[in-house]
């Protein structure tokens, strides 16, 4: 009779297959060995990417989820394996990335005894997971996994963690998999209140200077087409948050730019000049709002979010629409009038000209022959026609890329927004390529961030993934240095960075590499990199002390953007 029973570890694999998982990022260890043993029989159907550090696994899974519309799956062992996931969990939580992380745990009789490689990962990860659970019996595994997949991808997506004790992995169970479709205390898909949509439409239709801010929620709800239709019918100018880049084609005439601390000049200052501000699938991060007491006070605010706790959290909404962005945009498009806001759009163009001219003046004053970050990004954008998947790390290069890459395709921007995790880009780019193998993936990383997770070059070597890496090397932790220059009297406390020979390093991993210093070599080097069959590392030496402008300094309002 017992012959139909399988082990808990096999139940893990069968459950994952039932959820159409075909890629896992992970690292084996003692407490997850039974699951790895079960995985060994799935070599044909499930690709496992062996990383070099568990942080690499989770960032790769994030990159994968962000480009593929699938859920990123991670395996890690107990103790240090599990704690190495923490940064990625926090990152995925704040950036709403759907992940299912499975950690091994010591056998249940050892729980709480300080056993070898025991750590309370459920306790540690509680504030940085959407949901987590510890499983101590084999028969509980399929239900936990079904719940995990349901929670990770519904409502506002997020990371979940399942901690499975070793005895549960070894234990025997009957296997029957039922997908989860309802949890009685969880309400992920709110019904749109038509009355609130009508209130919003009334404000929009009466507005003289309506202004639309979009966030990642557009892409998470697959509402790109609905957005385009809403924007074109209503004639409203559109600006994007960092994570929203790509949701709306940046070459569209109604696209006015990127918001926030280092965002474009026009979209920031116009926030305090519009009369109706419509925010869809974004959460008014402090990097977007600046001083909230001086943010859009003159405007009526319409806020659409699937997460009720975001509504009225930072900015009081005159009309709060608790709904999926796609659905809300569809309804709003029917309700708004066909309009054009030509004069209002011109105001954005005029402000943009001020920005472009001032930045050009700044550059002229430098009289420097050194390459600038923005030149590299602009050229890359031109060569790839804004259609590559761009993965960035954190810092000056990230802001420069957000400013100057023309994101014309959805889900083409992978970056660590809310958490600002240095070291994110290299592993995330590996995952992004597995998520979208048919598209070119370019990771743009600073010399500092690259050295935080450069061990993942080994993952690239072993998995034979084709990722292009551009290191913008300014020999500084540039963003901190910029702040030290501006606010700490140029006291460059521990921001200068001595780096190894990245070209030699890359070649040690059998990854073709080149270093560029001259402007005249840039274009050809970028073309060579993109055309190279396989991975490639291009180190570009850029100006040491370039600053990112515009800048909205701490405590400033969106009207007080500095251009130099």
């Amino acid at each position, binding site marked *: 009779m017992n012959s139909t029973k399988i082990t808990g570890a096999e139940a893990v694999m069968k459950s994952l297959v039932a959820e159409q998982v075909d890629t896992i990022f992970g690292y084996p260890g003692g407490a997850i060995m039974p699951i790895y043993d079960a995985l060994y029989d799935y070599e044909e159907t499930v690709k496992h990417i062996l990383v070099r550090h568990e942080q690499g696994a989770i960032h790769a899974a994030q990159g994968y989820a962000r480009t593929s519309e699938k859920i990123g799956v991670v395996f890690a062992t107990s103790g240090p394996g599990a704690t190495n996931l923490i940064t990625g969990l926090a990152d995925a939580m704040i950036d709403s990335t759907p992940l299912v992380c499975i950690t091994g745990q010591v056998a249940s009789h050892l729980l709480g005894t300080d056993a070898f490689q025991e750590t309370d990962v459920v306790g540690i990860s*509680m504030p940085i997971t*959407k949901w987590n659970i510890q499983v101590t019996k084999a028969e509980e595994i399929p239900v936990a996994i079904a719940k995990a997949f349901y929670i990770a991808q519904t409502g506002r997506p997020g990371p979940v963690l399942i901690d499975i004790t070793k005895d549960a992995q070894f234990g025997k169970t009957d296997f029957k998999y039922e997908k989860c479709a309802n949890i*009685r*205390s969880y309400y992920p*898909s709110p019904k749109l209140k038509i009355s609130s949509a009508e209130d919003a439409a009334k404000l929009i239709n009466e507005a003289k200077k309506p202004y639309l801010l979009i966030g990642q929620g557009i892409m998470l709800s697959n509402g790109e087409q609905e957005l385009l239709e809403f924007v074109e019918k209503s004639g409203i100018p559109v600006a994007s948050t960092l994570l929203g880049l790509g949701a709306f084609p940046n070459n569209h005439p109604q696209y006015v730019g990127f918001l926030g601390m280092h965002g474009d000049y026009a979209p920031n200052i116009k926030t305090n000049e519009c009369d109706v501000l419509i925010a869809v699938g974004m959460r008014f991060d402090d990097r977007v709002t600046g001083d909230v007491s001086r943010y859009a006070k003159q405007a009526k605010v319409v806020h659409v979010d699937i997460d009720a*706790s975001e509504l009225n959290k930072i900015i009081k909404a005159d009309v709060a629409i608790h709904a999926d962005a796609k659905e809300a945009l569809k309804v709003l498009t029917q309700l708004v009038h066909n309009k054009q806001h030509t004069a209002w759009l011109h105001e954005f163009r005029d402000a943009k000209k001020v920005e472009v001219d001032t930045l050009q003046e700044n550059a002229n004053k430098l009289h420097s022959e050194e390459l600038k970050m923005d030149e590299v990004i602009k050229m890359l954008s031109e060569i790839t026609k804004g259609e590559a998947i761009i993965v960035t790390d954190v810092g000056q290069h990230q802001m420069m890329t957000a400013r100057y890459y023309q994101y014309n395709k959805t889900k083409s921007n992978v970056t660590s927004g809310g958490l600002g995790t240095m070291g994110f880009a290299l592993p995330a780019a590996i995952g992004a390529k597995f998520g979208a193998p048919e598209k070119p993936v370019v990771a743009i990383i600073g010399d500092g961030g690259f050295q935080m997770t450069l061990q993942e070059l080994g993952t690239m070597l072993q998995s034979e993934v084709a990722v292009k890496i551009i290191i913008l090397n300014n020999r500084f932790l540039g963003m901190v240095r910029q702040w030290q220059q501006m606010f700490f009297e140029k006291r460059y406390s521990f921001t200068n960075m001595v780096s190894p020979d990245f070209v030699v390093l890359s070649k040690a991993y059998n990854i073709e590499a080149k270093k560029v210093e001259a402007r005249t070599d840039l274009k050809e080097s970028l073309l060579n990199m993109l055309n190279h069959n396989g991975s490639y590392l291009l180190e570009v030496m850029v100006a040491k002390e370039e600053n990112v402008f515009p800048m909205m300094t701490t405590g400033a309002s969106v009207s007080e953007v500095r251009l130099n």
Partner: protein
Amino acid sequence: MEKIFTVSVFTENSIGMMNRVTIIFTRRHLNIDSITASESEVKGVFRYTIVLRTTREQVDKVIGQLEKLIDVFKAFVHEDSEVVHQEIALYKIKTASLTNGDVEKVIREHHARILTVDSQFMVIEKTGHVAETQLLFTNLQPFGVLEFARSGRVAVTKPMKEFSTYLKELEESKG
């Protein structure tokens, strides 16, 4: 302006629920004055009653974060005027002090009751608001209070809408 609020959270009875609920407060640097948990009038649904002093703005945001937890059905916040609440306090004093007639007087005046009398000690019970149980403590102190313990607040709300009605509405709101 800071005020006393009573937060009621209706949850599943899962391991770690108390931790999930309390870290929402910790993260915002809010100190919880008292917390109690028990099964509610709906079988299997637990009710946490949390008392804290904070601002209306903060507590409203906390409610949003609590409701975001997967295992939370609903959370409510009430001011003192909107709830009927009680606490229970136990006082252990030496039995020998009973020979002093004043102890009996204090117990009578406070409408407290004697739970148990042992050859060595006795336990007095008093339910009421904090001020009342605290006053009894003060009045018993001259006789020597060996131990004193007070529960967290339990509270029911004055509005007549039942939690099961909310549950039904929530279920219907699912798209």
